[in-house]
Every structure is written in C-alpha cells, then in structure tokens.
C-alpha cells in the first residue's frame, strides 16, 4: 500500500510505547462526578436539574435550543449535590453539575432495580431510519467530536454539500496518546460500523480508515473487520489507508490532503472538498448511541507521561476527576517528579494546575509529565533559519507572520494567512530559538477576528 502524507510537518518524540500495549481498562466505581455543562464548540447550555434532584445514568442534565448545541447527560445514577463553576480542562472556570453516586442500599432495603437507574434512548437502526431521525439521535446522544475541538457531530453530519468520502481519523499524531490505537485494535468492528453509519447519514460512496504507520499492526484487524462487516457485504466501500507517521498528520486538513490530494479552501470546511472526518472515539460513541441507545457519558483516554509510574488506557465516566482514576489504582503518579499536567497531547493540549480537573467529552488523554519532560526554554531572537517555514503544514511563513504581528501589521498578517493557521504548534516545536510562534498566532487570530467584527459593526 502506498503510504500517503502531506507537505511539511515535524517529528516530535512519540513516546507512545509506554501505553500502546496496555488493553483498555474500565473505571467501575465512581463516587462523584463533576460534569461540565458546556463541553462542545458552540452556544452555551442551561442545566436542566437542580440541587437535590435524583438523576439516572444517561439522563439529560443540560441542553439548549439552537443548532450549535449538544446536550449533556448524567454519567452515573446519583443525587445532584451542587451546581457551581469549577475549573475545566481548558483551564478556565465553567458551570459544572456535581453528582454524587447513590450510596449502596442500606441493610434490609431492596436494591433499586437497574432499570430505574438507567435512562438510555431506545435502540435505533441507523440503516433503517431516515436521515433526520439519525441526526436527531446523534444530537440526542450528546455526541461531539472527541478528538479535541468538541464540534457538534450532528452539525458535521448535515453538510450542505455532497460528500464523496468519510474519513475515520486514526492518525493519532499527538505524541504519548494511544487510546485511538487501542480502540482500533480492540473494537475494529465498531470503528468500521461507525464509518458505515456516517457514510449512510451523509450518503457518501466511500469510507477510508486512516492510520499512521506506527499503528500498522491495527491494519490486519481493521481489514478483517471490513471484510466481515455486513455493511461491506451489502456493497458499502470501506478501506484502510496507511499514512506516514508525522505531526500533524491527524489535523483535519492534512488528513484530507493526504488521502484525497485536495486542499480544503481557505476559510472553508472539509465538506467543500466532499469530506467528512470523524475521530475514532466519536465513531464508537455513535455505534453505542444507535445500538444501545447509550448517550456519550463515558470515554476512553490515555493517562501517561514521565511522572506517571503506571500508565493506563481507561474508559471513565465523563466528569470523573482524573485524581479519582489515580486513586482507584488504575494509574499511578509520582507527585515528587511531576512537572506539568496536560489535558490532551503535548503539541496542542492545555497545561492545567492540577489533575483534579474532570474528564470531558473531548479529553483524549492526560499527561503527567516529569520535570525533564516539562523543560521550557527562554525565547531567543529569531535567526531567520526558516525551519518553521518548511515545517508549517499550512505553508504560512510563520517567521514572516510573527514579524507582521510584532509590528502590529494585521493587514499583512491576514494576507500571509493568519486566519488559516490551525494552531498545530509545529512552528514553535521546530524553532531552534524557541520563539513563541503559535502562541503569538493564537492571540493574533483573536485580535484580528475582534477587529473584523468591529469593522463589520461600524460598516452597518
């Protein structure tokens, strides 16, 4: 098979070997969950429960009207204890519903029937229902992109343009993280089924499961699952595509370019080139939502890093403080060695002050880095070596962009392509002077967007 890729990129140390061979475990006993009300990219939600309410597992606890909203469900059966702002994995405070698990029934009391504690949706056959029913189910199950951004999946699956290919993003190009790799090896049938459901919803003729070369061992498993899937037997076209191991291969745009050779137009969406890209975890969540009617109330994540004495790939209820996963003994941390806590991968993840922060729908991993791994460097002057220019996967001339931003020239910055930056951080990674390039672009993008908004208002 021809191994495909994109132009540019870099090779940060992978460090996946510590957790790549560990089978996914499950956190069973949870005493308390802290469920953020807003876990998606879009309009904010309203909590639907009040303090003291008894909530069932899978019960909707937050929702709002509007297209860019996705409901949130209770991951456990319990009592709502508090609704208050807590620090979320994006390192800012947001409203959270704190639910305490029901205590075990007292002596002599009958245990409540399991049915009374579970509130799932009825199963739905994705291949027999209408497109509208399917989209309604995806939203009702609270599914968002689980790879990082948390984009509402029901919006992604209702494109206004014809889709020719559905891509399952198994690149997992962030170093350290291995949960997608484990999911592909342990649940290949569900990955294939998820691709098939997505293809059905967007009426795409082709499905591609894209895997980086360092996960080539998942290839035969996926191919076997494809061959034995009832969907491919009934004529659906699904295949696996190997990609070069390179960061940011799993970026939506880079993935599309590697597989189709097309580039997503500036300011456009994958649908503009006939593509829909889905994260591996999202695909499995969709399968659960149709087959079992189970909303997105738990997810797999990798807990690893140099200060993590015992790494783990674990499925935990949404809202579980990572500290509780450690307390349950599934993973171990060396607090003495701990230098950084990162929610997400080392390239795009968010550094947070504590591992008390709960798991969210888009938390693909938690890194407990030791002091050595957390080493940061002072910013030196740009020597104009051009390494960032060659590494930028969007060909944005980061060195020149930084000069434009530092001189406050937003017109030039926009011309160079500030708004096209995907913030992958490759430029900052390769910089020998440790310039804060992507950091400047992130701020610059916000400033430029605000400026444009103001302009539009003034023009009105």
């Amino acid at each position, binding site marked *: 098979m021809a191994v495909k890729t994109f132009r540019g990129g*870099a090779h*940060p*140390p992978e460090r996946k070997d510590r957790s790549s061979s560990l089978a996914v475990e499950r956190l069973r006993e949870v005493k308390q969950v802290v469920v953020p009300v807003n876990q998606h990219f879009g309009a904010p939600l309203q909590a639907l429960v009040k303090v003291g309410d008894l909530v069932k597992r899978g019960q909707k606890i937050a929702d709002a009207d509007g297209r860019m909203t996705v409901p949130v469900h209770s991951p456990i059966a319990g009592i709502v204890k508090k609704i208050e702002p807590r620090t979320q994995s994006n*390192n800012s405070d947001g409203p959270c519903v704190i639910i305490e698990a029901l205590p075990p029934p007292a002596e002599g009391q009958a245990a409540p029937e399991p049915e009374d504690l579970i509130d799932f949706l009825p199963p739905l056959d994705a291949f027999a229902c209408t497109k509208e029913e399917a989209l309604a189910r995806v939203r009702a199950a609270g599914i968002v992109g689980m790879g990082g951004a948390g984009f509402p999946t029901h919006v992604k699956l209702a494109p206004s343009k014809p889709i020719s290919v559905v891509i399952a993003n198994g690149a997992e190009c962030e*170093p350290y993280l291995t949960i997608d790799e484990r999911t592909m090896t342990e649940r290949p049938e569900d990955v294939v089924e998820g691709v098939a459901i997505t293809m059905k919803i967007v009426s795409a003729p082709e499905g591609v499961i894209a895997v980086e070369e360092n996960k080539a061992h998942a290839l035969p498993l996926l191919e076997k699952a494809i061959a034995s899937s009832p969907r491919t037997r009934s004529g659906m076209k699904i295949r696996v595509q190997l990609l070069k191991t390179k960061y940011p291969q799993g970026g939506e745009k880079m993935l599309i370019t590697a597989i189709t050779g097309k*580039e*997503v*137009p*500036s*300011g*456009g969406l994958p649908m503009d080139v006939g593509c829909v890209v889905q994260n591996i975890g999202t695909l499995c969540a969709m399968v659960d939502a149709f087959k079992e009617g189970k909303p997105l109330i738990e997810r797999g994540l990798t807990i690893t890093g140099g200060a993590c004495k015992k790494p783990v790939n674990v499925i935990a209820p949404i809202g579980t403080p990572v*500290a509780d996963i450690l307390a349950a003994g599934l993973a171990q941390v060396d607090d003495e060695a*701990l*230098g*950084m*806590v990162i929610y*997400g991968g*080392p*390239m*795009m*993840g*968010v*550094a*947070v*002050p*504590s*591992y*008390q922060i709960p798991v969210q729908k888009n938390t693909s991993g938690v890194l407990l880095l030791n002091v050595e791994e*957390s080493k*940061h460097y002072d910013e*030196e*002057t740009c*020597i*104009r*070596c*051009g*390494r960032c220019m*060659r590494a930028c*996967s*969007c*060909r*944005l*001339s980061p*060195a*020149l962009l930084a000069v434009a931003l530092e001189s406050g020239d937003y017109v030039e910055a926009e011309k*160079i*392509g500030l708004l*096209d930056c995907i913030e992958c*951080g*490759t430029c*900052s*990674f*390769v*910089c*020998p*002077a*440790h310039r*804060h390039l*992507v950091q400047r672009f*992130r701020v610059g993008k916000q400033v430029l967007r605000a400026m444009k908004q103001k302009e539009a208002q003034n023009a009105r």
Partner: protein
Amino acid sequence: MPAKGILLSSSPHSFTPVTTSRMMLSVIIALIPAVGYGVYLYGFSALALILVSIVSAVAAEYVFRKVIKASTTIGDFSAIITGLLLALVLPPKTPLWMVALGAIFAIVVAKEFFGGLGANPFNPALIGRAFLLMSFPAAITTWSMPNGLALAADVTSTATPLALVKQGAALSDVATYFGASGVGGLFRQLFMGYRSGSLGESSILLIALGGLFLIGLGVIQWIVPVSVIGSAFVFSWILGMNPLFTILTGGIVFGAFFMATDYSTRPLTPVGQLAFGVGIGLITVIIRKFGGFPEGVTYAILIMNIATPYLNKIRVKKYGYVPPVKPAKPSKEASK
C-alpha cells in the same frame, strides 16, 4: 496533590533538540576542512589571521553588548562564524591589525548596530571585507602563492587567476602561470586547491564538501547554493566566458555555500531564495566581465541583500489558497 512547581504554559509542550548554537556550531564544523587546508597552504600566518579575526569579532560583540547593556550573546557562536568567514575571504597575508579592524567593523557596524543576530540586513563578514577593500585597496588585493608551513618571511606577491584573465590572459597562459599542464590540468588544480587566493577560495572540493554536509544536516537548503552556482555558470557561458573557470575561481562556491546562505540576509521564501541566488550569479558575472574588479562575489551578495525584504514577499501559496475575487471596477460615474 502538589500545588507548587506545576508549570503552566501555552502549547506546544514539546521542543526540538536543535538549538541556535547547535546550528551555528555545525557551520563551524563544516568550515574546518577548508580552514585546515588553508593553514596547510599558508602556514602559521593563516592560523594567526583566523585566530585574530575570530577573537576580534567575539570580543567586539561582547564589549559592544556590555556597553549598550544588552544580554551577552557570544554563546550562540554567531560571532565566531562572522570572524571565521571574514578571515577566509581576506588575502592570507593581510596585516593582522587590518583583520582585527575589519572584524570589529563587521560585528559592531554591520551586525550590532542593526540589533544583532537575525536583524542585520547585510552579511557582516562581507561588509567587513568591503570595508577593508575600500580602506586599504592595495593590501586587500595583494595575493601570494601558498608557501606551506615554512616560516619564510620573503613572500612573493602574485596575481589570482581571475586577475590574470582580467588583464587579458588566455586560460592556457593562466595554466602556465600556475604550473599546470594545459587548461584541463588548471581546472583540476583549481578544484583541488593549489593556487593564489584567499583561504576560503582555495579548495573547491573541501568547500563543497562542507556545504553538502550542511545541506545534509538540514542547516542550509540547496536552493541558494545551486541557484548561485548554476546562474553564474549559465550567465558566464552566455557572455562568452569559460563557465567552468567562472565557478572554479574566486569566491563563487564559497559565497554560494557559506555567504549567500546566511540566515538573516537571504530571503526566507523558496522562490525568493531562487531569485536571490540567480541575482548573485548574474551580478558576479557582470562585475567580472565588465567591472573594474576581477572578482565580484562580495558586491553581488551585498547588492542582493538589499533585495531580500522584497524577495520575502514572493511567498509560497498558502494551504487552501483561494484567489481573491476582484471587486468590479467602479464606473467613472460612480466614482464622481
């Protein structure tokens, strides 16, 4: 749960092991063969020339930054490179005080006045050479034949191959002058390095090896050297000069690999680099053919340095580039 000592920062949290000083160090390593051969050819005087130049450059940077109360930057090794490069483009018997003066001028005026590393518009080493050439034209154009490690004081001044051609000599005369058998023998000799000239233009072989080493490491890219040498070859051929002689003599190869690739003074964009390199080759050939000097690489590079900010505007099309929709031209009535 540790509350203290947890580092917060904006992503990415992973960094390349490549640092500025490591890249600069690799340039120094790449120059070692040429330096070693230069010392072999011209003896201890060459070694003194190199050392004086480097020490003056580093000291100038250290003192200047102390005086203006800026952070010390000699640890990035860039001043060493400037000093080394200057030494390699001067005649081997240049008086040492001139060398020191040139190095100080290069660092203080051409580099630090503009803000130091990465901010200088002109190649500091070449500014140093141009400054010396203007100030002491006789000394900087007095060449000598290699006299080996001998400490012989009597140095016979001689002409460079380019100067001979400028005076109207045919290539066969040049071959005779340098004791080579025929034009083919002359080319072989120029390639291997036994001839009069600056230290850095002696052995094309060793200089090219150093350059290829840097390209292999990814410290410099091929576009600039290839376009400089390629365009010098092509344009000299068009102007009726011997193209092989053009690239084997003077500082074309050294300039292409070590001067024109200077980070701060060459364009960053690939197409800009191509235009930059072609411009250097063209201007060099024009100076050699029509100019008053036999050699023109220094001025060719400095002239193209001026164009660098403009050449940086020739960017690669960004990912997903959509050509802007041109607004319809307003009619004359509307503009009134």
